[in-house]
C-alpha cells in the first residue's frame, strides 16, 4: 500500500470517528490542527486504525507520534512486515 493510499484510508477513519466531513489530513497534521482530536478521541482513533489495518500498536507507540506522518510511518512498517 503506498503512502497516498494509507493517507486516504486514514482520513476516512478520522472522518468517521470524529464525525466531521471537513477533515483533510496531511503528513504534518497534529492534534492541534484537527478539531475534536483530543486525548479521548485519540484512543478511539488508535483502536479504529488498528482494526482497519489489522495491526496492533504497543502501548509505547500509542503516545509516540508527533504528527500524522509519523503515525503513517508506524502503520506502514507494520503492514509491510
Amino acid at each position, binding site marked *: 500500500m503506498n503512502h497516498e493510499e494509507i493517507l486516504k484510508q486514514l482520513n476516512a477513519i478520522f472522518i*468517521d470517528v470524529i464525525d466531521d466531513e471537513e477533515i483533510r489530513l496531511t503528513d504534518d497534521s497534529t492534534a492541534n490542527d484537527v478539531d475534536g482530536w483530543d486525548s*479521548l478521541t485519540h*484512543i*478511539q482513533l*488508535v*483502536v479504529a486504525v488498528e482494526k482497519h489495518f489489522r495491526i496492533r500498536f504497543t*502501548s509505547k507507540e*500509542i503516545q509516540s507520534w508527533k504528527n500524522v506522518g509519523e503515525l503513517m510511518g508506524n502503520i506502514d512498517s507494520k503492514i509491510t512486515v
Partner: protein
Amino acid sequence: MQKFTDLRKNLKKDFSNLKKIKVAVLGDSATQFLVQALRGTGFEKSLDLQIWESDFNQIECQVLDPYSELHEFDPEIIIIFQSTHKLLAKYNKLAPAFQPSLASSQIALINTIFTTINAQQRAKIIYYNYPELDDSVFGNYASKIESSFLFQLRKLNYELMVFANEHSNFFLCDLSSIQNQAGKAYSFQSSIYINTEMVLSIDILPEVAKRTTDLIGAIAGNFKKCLILDLDNTLWGGIIGDDGLENIQVGSLGIGKAFTEFQYWIKKLKNRGIILAVCSKNTESVAKEPFENHPDMVLHLDDIAVFIANWENKADNIRQIQSILNIGFDSMVFLDDNPFERNMVRENIPGITVPELPEDPAEYLEFLYQQNLFETVSYSNEDAERTKQYQVEAKRNVLQKSFTNEGDFLQSLNMVSVVAPFNKFNSPRVAQLSQRSNQFNLRTVRYTEADIEAIILAQDIFSFTFTLTDKFGDNGMICVIILKKENEDTIFIDTWFMSCRVLKRGMENFVLNTIVDYANENGYAYLKGQYLPTPKNQMVENHYFHLGFKQSADYWVLKVKDYNQKQCFIKAT
C-alpha cells in the same frame, strides 16, 4: 450491536422528547467512554440518561460525604464500577495472612457504600460484578487455595449475588458474564488500559452499555411480558400441514434437538411469568395437533395463554392477542423464522420487538441468550401463575357472551375481594405491580419494596391492597391504593393502580366504596385525586369524572358526605 462510534454520534441527536432519568456514575477506573456509551445507548431506547460522572476514584468520598456533589445531584440511579484491576492492586499489597479475607472485606466496603446511600438517598444502585482475571500464580491449583486471587474473585462474585438477593435496591450488572460471552481478548485491551486506565475495550462498550441500560429500563418499568411464537420451523422443524405429525422435527434426533432445547428455554420463560401466545398461519386443528399428540413436544396447550392459528395476516392476529391480554405492544416479543412475516409485523405494529432470528435453528438459542430480551427487576410466585389467569380470562369472555344483562353476568361470577394494608407478606407483590402497571395507573408513581416498607411504618400514609376471586379462580392482588393525609379535612389519593385483567367487573366501584368508608370513619370531609397523563394511561383520563369527582384545577375532589355507595357485585371478606 452498534459500534461505539455510532453511539457517540447519537449524543448529538435530539433527546428532548425522551424519558429523563438522572444517573450518577462512579468508578475507580476511567469511565468517560462508558458514560458516552450509556447515554448513546439510552437514546436507542428512548431514554434521556442525564448522567453525572464523578471524578476518577472518588467512590467512597462521594458516597460518605453528605455534602458531596453526588448527594446534591440526587440521582435516581447510581452506577458503581469497581474494576477487577483495582481489586487485584489491592490484593497485591496484602500480606499473605490477609489474602483469604479479600472478598469479605470488599463486601464489607460495598455494604458500607450501599447502606450509606440507601439511608440518605432515593437512588437504586447498579453495581458491576468482577470479570475474571487469572493471575496464574497457582495455575489450576488456584481453585483449591483460598488465598489465591481467582478464589477470592469468584467468592466475591458469589457473595455479591447473595448481597443483591438480600437488598432490594441493589442490582448487579453481570460484567463477568459479558466477558465470558465475548472473550477476554475482545473485552480488554492492555495497551489502552496502560495508557488510559480504561478497563473496558472500545469494542465491548456497546455490550456493557446495552446490559446496563436494559437494567435501567427495567427499573423504569420497560420490560417484556409476552412472547408470541410462530410454529412451523420456529417451534419445530418442518411444516405440520405438509409434513404431518410423524415427520416434523422435534425430539432428541438430529436437528430436532435444536427445537427441543429451544422449547425448554421457552418453558422456563413461561414458568418465570412470561405469557406465551401462538400466532401461526395454519388451520387451527392442524396447528394444535403436535401440542396434543406429539410425544416429544415440551410445550403443551396449557402453556399457551392465547392460541391463534388461521390464515389472516399476522399483524391483525397480534392486535387480537393484544386486545385479549391487554398489555402494550412494547412489552411483546415476536419470534418467527420467516423474514417476510418479521418485516410485516415490525412495520405494522409499532413498539413490538422482532429479533432477526438466525437462519439455522441450531443458532436460535445462543442468539437469543445474547439478546437479553427478558430483563426484569422483580420476581414473585404469582408470576408463575400468570398463564393460568389469562386462560381463565379467555373462558370468562366466552361466558360473558351468553349473558345479555351485565349485572346478571357479574352476579353470576360470585366475586369476593380481600382488602388488606401493606404488610411484609404482600409487599413484594405490591412493588412488582407498582413497576408493571402502566395503563390503569392514575399517577404512575413507582414504588420499590424498600419504599413500601417505609410506607408501612409511616404515620400519615394509609395503604390498601385488593384481591379478587371469582368462581373461575383467584386473580391474586389486583389493585393498590395509597392515601396520604393532606390536612385534617382532606385525604389525597397518591396512588391508584389496578391490573387490567379485572376491568369491567365493577372493581373501581368496590374500591371507591372502600376508601370513602375509610375517609368517613376517620373524619375526612374530602377525597382528592389526580390524573397525571403518560403515553400509556389514557384509559383512566376520565376515571375520577366517571366516579363522580368534581374537577378543581389540576385535581379531582369528592365530598365524602354527598357520596352514595355505588352498586357493585363484589363482596368483601
